[in-house]
């Protein structure tokens, strides 16, 4: 069966510091991968998605970047964090390409101080 994991689960970082969140998927090949950010108790904002190695589509101009160095690895990064980068970050992979169903990781809570 397929599994998805992301880490770290919780992160507290000072303004201006770098960021790296990692996500890996097991049990499937060439998945579509996604990074979302969620404000407290609200909906999910699509940040990046990738349909293959090295292919990244950015949805929102921001202080973040994404990379896909391997088929089942998706990384969210920042060189210098801003206060507004705080939030709950979710990685997801797409199960059924025809219907868009997503399966999410456990989430990473980022607090920028």
């Amino acid at each position, binding site marked *: 069966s397929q599994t998805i994991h992301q880490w770290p689960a919780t992160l507290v970082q000072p303004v201006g510091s770098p960021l790296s969140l990692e996500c890996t998927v097991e049990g499937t090949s060439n998945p*579509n991968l996604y990074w979302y950010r969620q404000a407290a*108790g609200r*909906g999910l904002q*699509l940040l990046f*998605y990738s349909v293959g190695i090295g292919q990244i589509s950015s949805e929102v101009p921001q202080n973040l970047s994404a990379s896909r160095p391997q088929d089942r690895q998706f990384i969210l990064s920042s060189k210098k964090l801003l206060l507004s980068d705080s939030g*709950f970050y979710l990685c997801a992979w797409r199960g059924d390409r025809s*219907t*868009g*169903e997503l399966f*999410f990781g456990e989430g990473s809570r980022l607090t920028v101080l």
Partner: protein
Amino acid sequence: TQLLEQSPQFLSIQEGENLTVYCNSSSVFSSLQWYRQEPGEGPVLLVTVVTGGEVKKLKRLTFQFGDARKDSSLHITAAQPGDTGLYLCAGERAGGFKTIFGAGTRLFVKA
């Protein structure tokens, strides 16, 4: 601009009551999903609807996709405290890889 509008944003009801949550858009979607999310966890898929007018039932939950595939509803019969959570609708437009989400409906069921 929110492409998927959910209403209500917040709902607090007594155990045993019925409720309906709505997800509306001016755009056509090839499919819509409903997810439920607990605090501190990722959303979990409840159902996918793909055909206009489709109705799906999952125990006490009934999901409907509008005939024009622009809207959907989630009806819960005899709500229980275990139904408490954030309900999110999400959709994908035809030919795309992007799944967008509504802002969510936070449901609280009191015992």
